């Protein structure tokens, strides 16, 4: 167990700087890079954690850590072993970004046939790569941080709450809530599809702010009414494929898309 030394106080309460490690499995490492992006708050951010392993930022490594942030999905057997090892050490295991939470963009290949994908991606130098799976298929995940990529601001807030010992909560409402607060024109009015009504908020309606429909990178909101969105998409003239492509893009809706595939023409899924 790491030795926790209070470094600073807030209102007389000691703050802890947990030993933290960042790991990546199969991913683009974009989420980790995102963390280093906001230079204005970078030093403050780094000072909150005692970072012992961060490939994007430093070279020396340590096997002692409290919190493990793991980016990426699991695609190979050696990653399965690594993940289990990390779980043994970590008090808190954080699935960091949509790949780790849901399989992410990687999991699209699960439906495409692995030989074809391997050839397309690696050409004549194939590497071992199986189905892309979320971390929780293999180990217990204590905390999920959604997004492809994650939002730096949100991660900062989470780390601050960890330092204070406060509960970490995610928005439970869908993207529409934030989209309306930003007074965007609804993409359905513009004749475009959008997964905002069923996708977990917290991104501040990142895509609709630039007039792009949401692709659901944060997975389902707490009370996502996917059957109803299916009806809405149909009414607005979008095909079942358009909806499925979006639902399948990041893996957050896998539970539902499998049901869709089984009942492509059925109007309502049984509850």
């Amino acid at each position, binding site marked *: 167990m790491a030795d926790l030394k209070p470094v600073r106080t807030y209102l007389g309460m000691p703050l802890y700087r947990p030993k933290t490690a960042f790991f990546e499995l199969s991913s683009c490492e974009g989420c980790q890079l995102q963390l280093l992006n906001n230079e204005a708050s970078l030093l403050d951010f780094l000072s909150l954690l005692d970072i012992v392993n961060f490939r994007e930022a430093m070279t020396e490594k340590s096997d002692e850590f409290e919190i493990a942030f793991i980016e990426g999905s699991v695609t190979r057997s050696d990653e399965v072993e690594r993940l289990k090892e990390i779980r043994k050490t970590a008090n808190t295991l954080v699935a960091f970004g949509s790949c780790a939470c849901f399989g992410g963009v990687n999991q699209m290949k699960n439906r495409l046939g692995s030989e074809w994908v391997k050839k397309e991606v690696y050409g004549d130098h194939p590497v071992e790569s199986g189905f892309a799976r979320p971390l929780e298929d293999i180990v217990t995940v204590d905390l999920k941080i959604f997004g492809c990529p994650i939002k730096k601001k949100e991660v900062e*807030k989470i780390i601050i709450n960890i330092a*204070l010992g406060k509960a970490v909560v995610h928005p439970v409402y869908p993207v529409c809530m934030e989209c309306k607060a930003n*007074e965007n024109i*609804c993409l359905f*009015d513009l004749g475009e599809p959008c997964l905002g*009504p069923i996708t977990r908020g917290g991104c501040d309606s990142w895509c609709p702010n630039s007039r792009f429909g949401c692709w659901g990178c944060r997975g389902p909101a707490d009370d996502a009414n996917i059957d109803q969105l299916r009806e809405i998409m149909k009414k607005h003239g979008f095909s079942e494929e358009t909806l499925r492509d979006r639902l399948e893009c990041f893996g957050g809706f896998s539970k539902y898309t499998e049901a869709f595939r089984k009942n492509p023409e059925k109007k309502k899924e049984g509850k």
Partner: protein
Amino acid sequence: MIFKVIKKEELKHLFDVLAAENRVVGPVEAGRDSNGRPIYAFDQVSDFNNICLDYTTTKISAKRYFLPYQEDLAGFRIDGKDWHKKINYNIESPYIFFGLHACDINALNKLDKVLLGSVYPMPYYAAKRKNMFIIGLDCIPQPYCFCRSMGADTALHGFDMFLTDMGGQYFAEILSDTAFNFLKNIKTAEPAYADRMRYIKIIAEKKRKFTVRVDTTDLANILDMEFQSDVWKQWGEKCLACGTCSQVCPTCYCYGVEETVNINFHEAKKTKMLYSCNLIDFAQVAGGHNFRLKRDARLKYRYYHKHRGFVEAYEESLCVGCGRCGEACLAEITVPAVISSVRGEES
């Protein structure tokens, strides 16, 4: 009340006088939908030509100017052994609204009852609402407007001046000294008999243009009786629990408060965020118990607050019939359809 007629070209002068030293908010075209129809929004305007005085209804109400979606309420900062508190009502100078329809003025009047008239008035709202200068504007009822059913198709107070388009000129009702004084800057005339008759005719014509209505007879009682009605389940099945209806509504005022600590741990603040009773955790309390876990229960309470609870407290509904919630709802849940289903009417 004082009445005047104002030639159309004079209105630009009035705008210029007002805009010279004030922030003016008016209806503008924010874009076009996929059918080429304009989409209107309230925005700050500095050029009279950008105001769309013939606008239908803005997609979203003007509420960000008096009930911002997000607002920092209070905060503090620690400086060594000292600390400072920060409270800001978030308004530097009053707003002038140039062209609010009657429903939106009535919405402000309703909000006043709750946010100014209650035991604990809300200073953040009061600071923005007091000194607001409002020019009302008549309108043509749209297929989704049912303000007449809600008694909100005419505004009797809550504005400084109200304009009715009579072709080449406006008929102006002047309610406040401020408006009277501003009007000294432009040419106005006393309405002649013919002008007054014309005005009466226009008002009467407008009343005939409503195509949708909500029967509010005994509605509070009917809602009470039909609390267990199956129709709630049907609507609940459609609802996306997205909160859009409340976000666009000019009278929804519910909010949540979040406390955050700055990353340098020297500062902290309380932030208010508008919320909606249709969101899943609206009735969740400490310990995690949720009194309204199901969508139909939450949707029902949106209607109960607007059309029953508020009526019992204030003898009027908390809905002005602007139709925005129904227009914005992707699941096509509209007030007229919901109320008529509760009343057992064929839709």
